[in-house]
């Protein structure tokens, strides 16, 4: 019985988890598109569409502000990003990196390591090679171990922030702790498994199950910000968008 369960979570369940993960991301992206709309060049989204005579196309509503719906090349599209980087020092002063340097740095490390650690873990890559016949370059065990420890420290930071920062506590619910738990469990168990602390078999099962649960969880929970963040920044017209902001809520 137990053996069958282990087989299941090591086999089909992995595929299901990944299937749900990628499928879910696509679904979320599609839903994102469906709740946003293309900005009308006249900025009159509710207005009935007039048959537009290309020749007589007048720029009325916003004057020069609506001129030039010109097609842009890839480099031109990237211009705002490049400029963003150029001016980033000015921008930084108003950004999280200055107002909350610790939160900002910890967030970046947390999110980067969240991906880097499992993807470049040697053991994972071994499994990957078994399944597909090739693998990504792996980081050494020592390195990933360090990354895990740092990652867990960042997680602990978020946990403490939830508990002890007044304004974050004001908006914290049980769900937030659950999300944090779901994110941290695979790392904690992985860390334990690597050290062979505790009952290896149990730890491994928890590790695999929690990892799979996380994958399934991502698209359909708050963790969906994984894809949402990029869609928002690149598509929606706002003060903080990286792109041209051609869409609106």
């Amino acid at each position, binding site marked *: 019985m137990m053996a069958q369960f282990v087989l299941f979570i090591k086999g089909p369940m992995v595929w299901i988890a990944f299937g749900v993960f990628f499928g879910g991301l696509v679904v979320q992206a599609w*839903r994102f598109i469906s709740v946003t709309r293309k900005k009308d060049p006249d900025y009159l989204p509710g207005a009935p569409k007039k048959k537009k005579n290309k020749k007589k196309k007048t720029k009325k509503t916003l004057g020069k502000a609506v001129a030039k719906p010109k097609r842009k090349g890839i480099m031109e599209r990237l211009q705002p990003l490049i400029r963003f980087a150029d001016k980033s020092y000015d921008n930084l002063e108003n950004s999280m990196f200055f107002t909350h340097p610790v939160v900002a740095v910890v967030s970046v490390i947390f999110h980067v390591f969240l991906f880097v650690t499992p993807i470049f873990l040697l053991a994972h890559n071994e499994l990957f090679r078994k399944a597909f016949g090739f693998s990504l370059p792996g980081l050494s065990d020592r390195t990933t171990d360090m990354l895990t420890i740092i990652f867990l420290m960042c997680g602990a930071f978020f946990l403490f922030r939830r508990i002890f920062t*007044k304004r974050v506590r004001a908006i914290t619910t049980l769900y937030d702790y659950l999300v944090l738990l779901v994110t941290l469990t695979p790392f904690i168990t992985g860390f334990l498994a690597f050290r062979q602390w505790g009952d290896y078999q149990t730890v491994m099962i928890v590790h695999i199950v929690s990892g799979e649960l996380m994958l399934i969880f991502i698209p359909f929970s708050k963790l969906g910000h994984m894809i949402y963040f990029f869609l928002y920044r690149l598509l929606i017209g*706002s003060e903080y968008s990286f792109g041209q902001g051609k869409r609106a809520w």
Partner: protein
Amino acid sequence: MSTPVNRDQIKRMLKARKSRMKRYLSHCMHCGVCAESCFLYMKNDKDPQYLPSYKVLNSLGKLYKKGGRVDRAFLLKIKPIVWKNCVLCRRCYCPVGVDVPAMIAFARSICRSQGVYPEETQSWL
């Protein structure tokens, strides 16, 4: 005031905007990063009550949580949140793109539909 609220109307309104508003609510990471972008938060000694996410979670968030089954007392409770604690300046920053002002505006619409809105100038200021 004791006049009952029209729950059906509130439910209809909630349902009409569900797809967007639910997404916002479910994607709010409760991270509190929006705090500094709110001038009201800054000017009120960083009182968490003025945190943009606090404002939406405790107005529209609760409306959805309760599925519209609210009474007038509830609407009167969120009235200061959506009117006094937010001026809809649309400057709030959210790292994952939650449109806070849209949600506050929607909460205001729902309150308005039940006759809950500021009538005295003093209450604005």
